[in-house]
């Protein structure tokens, strides 16, 4: 009984751990892709220009 409760607790903790890892990585990933591929600031566009063309992001 005690073992199964402990296992359940561990599983829940692991699931929560995984959920937060997924959320952080997804947000961070989307942010980085946005900055590299979509950010409208002219300076960012000019810096990333050749990358955006090559990776087929819509560019200017």
């Amino acid at each position, binding site marked *: 009984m005690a073992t199964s409760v402990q296992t359940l607790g561990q599983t829940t903790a692991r699931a929560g751990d995984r959920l937060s890892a997924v959320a952080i990585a*997804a947000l961070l990933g989307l942010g980085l892709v*946005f*900055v590299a591929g979509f950010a409208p600031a002219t300076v960012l566009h000019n*810096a*990333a220009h*050749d990358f955006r063309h090559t990776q087929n*992001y*819509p560019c200017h």
Partner: protein
Amino acid sequence: MILRLLSAALAAGFLAAVVATGLQLVLTSPLIVAAERYETQASAPSAPGLIQPAHVHLAHDHGHAAPGEAREWQPAPGLQRAAFTGLATLVGAVGYALLLGAVMLAVGREPTPESALGFAVAGFLAVALAPAVGLPPELPGSEAAPLAARQAWWVMTAVSTALGLYLILVRRVAITILGGLVLIVGPHLAGAPEAAETKTALPAGLAAQFAARSLGVSFVTWAVIGLAFGWCWQMFGRERANA
């Protein structure tokens, strides 16, 4: 788990960026520079064409820059421009690697080089090949529809294709396969913003070569991200287990 995911994505993104930057500088950047020469000729036919700076891109309207606005910063031709291309590639590749890791964990697949390569190929299909069917990779000077419309269609197609692939390959039930096919085909039935039909001095061969090379570079980028992410995930897991 978050540390393992972040470190694996950082390492995989870095490795992919090194490979992709090398390929870009050899395969696509020279074509972009060549295309900009045609672009300058078109926008300033009377300018004496003696020595042109490599990146004379701001001669045309960027959509968001008011005409007559002071020249904005841009990387100097040569080394600086190559360095910023590398930096942008690094940011983009780490971003893609993070998304790859997030999707694999969310779906509940253990990342190995093989399984991550499979997800990476799906990533290539979703963000490179599917949008390219409607909006082929373009050289400077050949753009047509307004930027916002093309970006919206690009994002919609990428998300829709990714969801479709998930429904078909991960869920694998008749009804989800049907739904997945609808999601993948839908954006193309709706149609991309008008493709370029404007007259341009750009040789068609140059544009075709660029489109093919661009998709090739994207594929290699994704493949390296997948293989490296799976490998790093396993390696960082072993390190933790041994510690």
